[in-house]
């Protein structure tokens, strides 16, 4: 896909988004005008701003049509193969991290995530890999759960219960 095509598609997407937001306000039955005794309705702000977004999108599409933007004149690839690989693999890795955090818990997910980046993608030595795979969850546990007292997701009950012994150990020995 060229940059020119990408700009057209993005312009259409932003226009559809803007119209969708306006529809959302209307569908929720929010007033987009003056309400006697109460002032501007709850829908005034999002509705009229979304209209502004729609107009800005139309302006972008018009500028694309008339070749006014540098992007509309560019036939270069929007994302080259190397970039697509790097970006897609990174985005997918984060996606997988979030899924894994939900099911197997933060710490196991972190270990797999770090292994993937450090060993599989980075091809670092086993020493470096192990230090990151083990060190990261420990650092995160100390920072978030001990210092910030934030309970990070532990996954399904099976994994959560398995992890409880670490918390129990900490509370027994340090509090």
């Amino acid at each position, binding site marked *: 896909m060229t940059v020119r095509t*990408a*700009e057209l598609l*993005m312009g259409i997407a932003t226009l559809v988004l803007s119209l969708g*937001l306006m529809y*959302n*306000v209307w569908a*929720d039955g*929010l007033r987009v005008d*003056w309400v006697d005794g*109460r*002032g*501007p*309705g*709850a*829908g005034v*702000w*999002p509705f009229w*701003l979304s209209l502004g*977004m729609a107009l*800005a*999108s139309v*302006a*972008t599409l018009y*500028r694309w049509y008339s070749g006014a*933007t*540098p*992007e509309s004149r560019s036939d270069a690839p929007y*994302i080259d193969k*190397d*970039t697509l690989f*790097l*970006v897609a693999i*990174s*985005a997918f*890795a*984060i*996606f997988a*991290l*979030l899924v894994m*955090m*939900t099911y197997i818990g933060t710490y196991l997910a*972190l270990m797999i*995530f*770090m292994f993937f*980046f*450090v060993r599989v*993608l*980075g*091809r*670092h030595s086993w020493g*470096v890999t192990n230090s*990151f795979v083990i060190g*990261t969850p420990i650092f*995160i546990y100390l920072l*978030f759960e001990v*210092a*910030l007292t*934030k309970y*990070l*997701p532990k996954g399904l009950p099976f994994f959560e219960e398995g992890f409880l012994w670490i918390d129990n150990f900490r509370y027994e020995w340090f509090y």
Partner: protein
Amino acid sequence: METILVSLGGGLMQAFEPLNFFMIVAGCLAGLFVGCMPGLGSVNGVAILLPITFLVPPTAAIIFLAALYYGAMYGGAISSITLGIPGASTAVATVFDGRPMAQQGKADKALMAAAIASFIGGTVSIILFTLFAPPLAIFALKFGPQEEFALMLLAFATFIGLGGDDIPKTIFSILLGLVMAAVGFDIISGQPRMIFFDMVEFQRGIGFLVLAIGIYGIGEMLWTLESTKGQIQMHKVSMTWARMKENFGEIKLYINSTWLGSFLGFFVGTLPAAGATPAALMSYGLSKTFSKDPDSYGKGNVAGVAAPEAANNAASTGSMLPMITLGIPGSPTTAILLGGMIIWGLRPGPLLFQESPEFVWGLIGSMYVANVVTVLLNLALIPVFIRVLAMPFTLLTPIIFVLCVLGVFATTDRMFDTWIMLFIGVVGYLMRKLNYPVAPAVLAIVLGPLAERSMRQSLISSQGDVTTFITRPISLTCVLLAVLLISYPLIQKVVRKRKAAAAG
């Protein structure tokens, strides 16, 4: 003046309290690290590390983040000079002469000049900040909702008029940020709004940090992966005490450019859309214009390193002036700081000087200390940071991604927000590739609730009369300036066409 000095004395005392001083050192170190990493800058560092600052009291937290902001400005020069890749956009101009100097084997000279210029720029701007902030805050106490709204309008207009980006795309970005800020319950009627697909998670709204970390954490890293592809070439630097002394003696070669950058940077930094990047570029341009040897710029003139470095440091302090006194951030980084202050339970704006003087003066005092600490750490640790720069992206990237994900989760306690962050990060990256500016959206989501509240309060008090924004002198001035700024690109276009027609 006496009151300012007394308050400043108190602020300095606060800065030297053990916890605060530790936060200054930690912030400067973190900032130097973040600043020197290609693709990362103060805004990324502040966005990613903001959730961690909830560990300490607000004063210590803002001190840490302000020091980080400062350190990042210093650190940006390291990668610009040794790698030829700016740590952040604020250090782009430093590459112009810093890189040729490194290629000529004068990287140490360039790094030394950058550090000294940054220190002078920082010092000048903090003094100006101390002098301007209290009177501006007193003046701003006259502001009602009309003035507040007009001022925010002015802030957004600055992005349109002076941002230099595609105008319809800038407007879209601003409006998108404002609409995203409206997701959740209406601030006045309490009615639920923009609850997409009836998902209850949207009732709590979209936090500014989710957007900021999405864009500046995930999106920025994707952008950096694309632009560097992990292939960087570093120039060697030999820093010895004798060389440092020798380089220090050459300060006269760039002192004029440094003064120019310092004053220009501060005032440009106070403008909402401007910030450190245009300040550094303008400073470089003016320094070249006024130079006796303009042809040497771009070929390794040390003044070409000093001018933008002084300016970007001065601008970082300058951008805090409207944030503290008016509640309007002067840069994306200060927009995130402002959001953080709201989370900490503070109310940025003129009342901050009255309600939380210890917070404001503690911050100002810490800025003086941070400036000294950063220059010392910078000079002492340049060899260490150069080693850090050699760190492969496959080690740095996952750590940043993990901090982004867990930082968002720790702030909101919801996995839902981490999904939104990922979505925003990827979409933000794709939009940025098409020249959609992202900074206005971050500013807008922070200012959105304040802007809506002040607009509705103004209209309620005037019974729906929109002329309320132009019947009060301060508000009228802001509105007129906003109109002027919005029409500025159009005026420029007309003037250019007429000139071309006259020439043709």
